[in-house]
C-alpha cells in the first residue's frame, strides 16, 4: 500500500519545527506503524537525509515509549493499544497520516517525535513508592487481600507511563497517570503507611511540573493503551482531599 506522511520535524527544543511530507510505496498492511517508520528512516538514510527521531523500545505494547500523536489521536485510531501495536491495515491505501509528538508544557520536545517525559519520573519520585521495609516476598495469602481489591490495584498498576493521557487531554492534564500511581498503593495494605503524604506530594509535584487540571472529559481513559478507568481520578481526589483535611502536615 501507499501512504503519504506528514511528520513533525524539529531539530531540538530551541528551534521551531514543522510538518514535512513524505511518500512511501510498497508498505505491507501487516507492518506495525513503527516498522513503517523504520522503512521511512532507511529511505532517508539512503538519500543522505536525517532520519526521523522517535522513541521505541519493547515493541510489545508494554514499555510505553512509542509516543506518537497519529491523525489527531494518541497512539493512532485504535483504542487500548500503543503505537507499536498499531498496524498499517488500520489505514487505507493512499491515506495521508499526520504524525506529531505529544504536546504538553511538561513534555518538551527533544527532537522530532521524541519528548522528554521525565516529569512523570519526578512525580513518581515524589511519593509513588513504599519506603517501609516489606521484607522478602511473603508466602502466598499471608497478607489477606480480597480478590476485588487486588484486581483494582492491578488495574491501576497496569499504567505504563506512556503519557497518552496527557497527550489526549485538552488541558494536558496528568491526572489519569498520577491517579493510577496513587490508587494502586492506596488500596493495598503495603501502601497504608505513606498513604496521605503520597497523595499530597504527588499532586504537588504534578502541579509543579506544569500539567493542567482535570475537566473529566474522559479522553485520557479512552486513549489509554491500558484502558485505565476514571474511577482512579475520583479516588485520587478523595485521597488528596482526605489527606489535606487529616494529615499531620500543616
Amino acid at each position: 500500500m501507499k501512504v503519504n506522511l506528514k511528520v513533525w520535524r524539529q531539530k531540538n527544543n530551541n528551534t521551531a519545527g514543522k510538518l514535512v511530507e513524505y511518500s512511501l510505496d510498497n508498505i505491507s498492511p501487516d507492518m506495525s506503524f513503527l516498522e513503517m517508520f523504520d522503512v521511512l528512516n532507511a529511505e532517508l538514510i539512503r538519500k543522505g537525509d536525517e532520519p526521523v527521531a522517535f522513541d521505541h523500545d519493547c515493541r510489545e505494547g508494554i514499555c510505553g515509549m512509542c509516543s506518537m500523536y497519529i491523525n489527531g489521536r494518541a497512539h493512532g485510531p485504535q483504542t487500548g493499544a500503543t503505537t507499536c501495536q498499531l498496524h498499517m491495515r488500520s489505514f487505507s491505501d493512499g491515506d495521508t497520516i499526520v504524525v506529531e509528538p505529544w504536546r504538553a508544557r511538561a513534555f518538551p520536545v527533544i527532537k522530532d517525535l521524541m519528548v522528554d517525559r521525565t516529569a512523570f519520573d519526578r512525580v513518581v519520585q515524589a511519593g509513588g513508592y513504599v519506603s517501609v521495609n516489606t521484607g522478602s516476598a511473603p508466602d502466598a495469602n499471608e497478607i489477606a487481600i480480597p480478590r476485588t481489591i487486588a484486581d483494582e490495584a492491578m488495574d491501576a498498576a497496569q499504567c505504563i507511563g506512556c503519557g497518552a493521557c496527557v497527550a489526549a487531554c485538552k488541558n494536558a492534564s496528568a491526572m489519569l497517570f498520577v491517579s493510577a500511581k496513587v490508587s494502586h498503593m492506596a488500596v493495598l495494605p503495603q501502601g497504608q503507611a505513606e498513604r496521605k503524604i503520597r497523595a499530597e506530594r504527588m499532586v504537588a509535584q504534578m502541579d509543579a511540573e506544569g500539567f493542567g487540571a482535570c475537566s473529566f472529559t474522559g479522553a485520557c481513559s479512552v486513549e489509554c493503551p491500558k484502558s485505565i478507568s476514571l474511577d482512579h481520578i475520583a479516588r485520587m481526589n478523595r485521597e488528596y482531599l482526605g489527606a489535606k483535611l487529616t494529615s499531620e502536615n500543616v
Partner: protein
Amino acid sequence: MSWVTQTLSSSLGRKVIMSLTGLFLSTFLVVHMAGNLQLFKGDEGRAFNEYTYFMTHNPLIITVSYLLYTSILVHALMAFVLTRHNQASRPVDYAFKRPEANSAWSSRNMGILGTVLLIFIILHMRTFWYEMHFGSVPMAEYDGKQYKDLYTVVVAAFSQWWYVLIYVVSMVALGYHLVHGFQSGFQTLGLRHKKYTPLIEALGTYVFAILIPALFAAMPIYIFLKANNFIG
C-alpha cells in the same frame, strides 16, 4: 502558605471550588424553577408577585442570595483562572486533532457554555433583579396590601420574540453545561461509586440537563404565546 491556601490553589483544590459552587448553583436552579412555576398559574400574576415579595423580604432567603451572587462570581473567576492555566499547559497545539473521537462536545466546551450563561445571567438580572431592587416597578394591591408588580415586567419582557429567543438559546446552553457539569462535580469531590454514580448521572442528565432547562424555557414561550394572544 498555610495548608488551606495550598490546598485551594492546587489544581485539585481549584476544581473543588468549581464543584462546590457549581453544585450549589444547581440546587439554586431547582428552587428558582419551583418558585417561578407560579407564572403558569393564570391568576394575572398574583401568586408570582406574592412569591417575589417573600423572596425579597425573608431574611434567610436574603442571606442565601448573597451566597448565590458570590458563588456565581467565584465560579466564573475560577473558571477563568483554570482555563488560563490549562491553556498554558499546552503552549504548542496539535496541527491535527480529533477530540470528538474520545470525548463529548459538552465536556470540552464548558468555558464557552459558561460564558454564554454568564452573559445570560447579566442580562437576566438587569431585566428583572435590577428592576425589582432599583428600578420603578408598578404596584399591585391584593387584600389591601401593596406588592411590586414584577409580573407586568416579566410579561413586557417576554412579549418580545427576540428576548424569548435569547432565553431559549441560553437554556439549551444550560442543558449542555449541566449534562457534563453536574456529574463531573461529584467526581471532583471523589464521589464515584458503582452504587450511586449511575443515579447521579441519571439525575444530571434527565433532571438537570433536560427537565429543568426545558421548564425554564417553557416560561418565556408560554408568556409570549399568551401575551400575543396565540393561546388563551
